[in-house]
């Protein structure tokens, strides 16, 4: 577990260093290329504003009204017996459906419980470790006109469930409850 922490800490700086050296070796105009690519980051951040505003307002209403706590308290006893924090369930449900909606929910969980709380870490891991099954399914199959999806949805959702369980186990092992 100690090693994973070290990897987490070193991974990004080493990767950045490697890419910059490799680019220089291959005679890439590094700075100009960086600026070109960076412009896309601005577009990306701005384009998710409406997604996050819509979802975070809805969650705020749901939370402030007391409905969220009511629902979470309802499912808490059963889930806590198996070590699953009930607060994470809404995120687990929405993650396969909409990536940006899940991002709003992750932000809300991190803001409410703190980024270094168990729930904050779990939400972070969950958000980063699975992708939006319905999005990939609709966009990829829709774009090329596949109408009969076969087992695709089942396989995708079961894989999401596996990722969800893996995230809980890994975060529990690494950081404890």
């Amino acid at each position, binding site marked *: 577990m100690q090693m994973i922490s070290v990897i987490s800490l070193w991974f990004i700086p080493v990767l950045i260093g490697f890419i910059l050296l490799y680019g220089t070796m291959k005679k890439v105009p590094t700075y100009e290329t960086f600026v070109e690519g960076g412009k896309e980051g601005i577009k990306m951040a701005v384009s998710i504003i409406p997604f996050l505003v819509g979802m975070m307002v809805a969650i705020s209403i749901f939370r402030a009204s007391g409905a969220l706590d009511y629902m979470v308290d309802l499912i808490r006893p059963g889930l806590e017996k198996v070590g699953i924090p009930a607060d994470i369930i809404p995120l687990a449900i929405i993650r396969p459906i909409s990536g940006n909606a899940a991002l709003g929910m992750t932000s809300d969980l991190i803001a409410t419980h703190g980024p270094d709380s168990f729930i904050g870490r779990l939400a972070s891991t969950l958000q980063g470790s699975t992708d939006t099954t319905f999005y990939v399914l609709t966009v*990829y199959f829709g774009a090329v006109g596949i109408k009969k999806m076969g087992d695709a949805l089942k396989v995708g959702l079961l894989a999401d469930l596996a990722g969800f369980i893996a995230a809980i186990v890994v975060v529990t092992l690494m950081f404890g409850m």
Partner: protein
Amino acid sequence: MVNYIWVGMTIIGLVFAAVNGTMEAVNEAIFKGAQEAVTLCIGLISILVFWLGIMRIAEVAGLLEKLSNLFRPLIAKLFPEVPSGHPAMGYILSNMMANLFGLGNAATPLGIKAMEELRKINGGKDTASRSMITFLAINTSSITLIPTTVIAIRITYDSAAPTEIVGPTLIATIISAIAAILIDRYFYYRRSRKG
């Protein structure tokens, strides 16, 4: 589906507030929620700009291409229907590499291209082929090296160690990818035994 969840959360919240007498808190929540979302997105710009800039260098330097060559033999095993040297394999690999480095926007067009080629291999039918389902399964559990957006959110909310989730995320994502492949294989053999 997301439409129903979105409207459902809002309406249930409003009704709950009416019954519970929490309308004042809800009023505040509407404006605070919107404000928080915008503040968050502005905060995301910093990391997204930096990371996409660095990744563009990796792309132009041919690093992604190199990596996909490295993984080619392994991935080819997962797609026995795709003939070696077929353009579909190239698109599948570049899609995976783009996902690996968190370039979601670059990954989508490559994924669609891959699907197009897979459909050609399948004789242009409108049914999902075995390879398509495998490709989809791997994609939905996409292996991510660095969850950039999540790190940015953690920084925004003053995490003491914003990147500490890189390791756990990588492990969880690898497990879910392996699970995806196993689940996909299981369903494939079940199908082929039936028919």
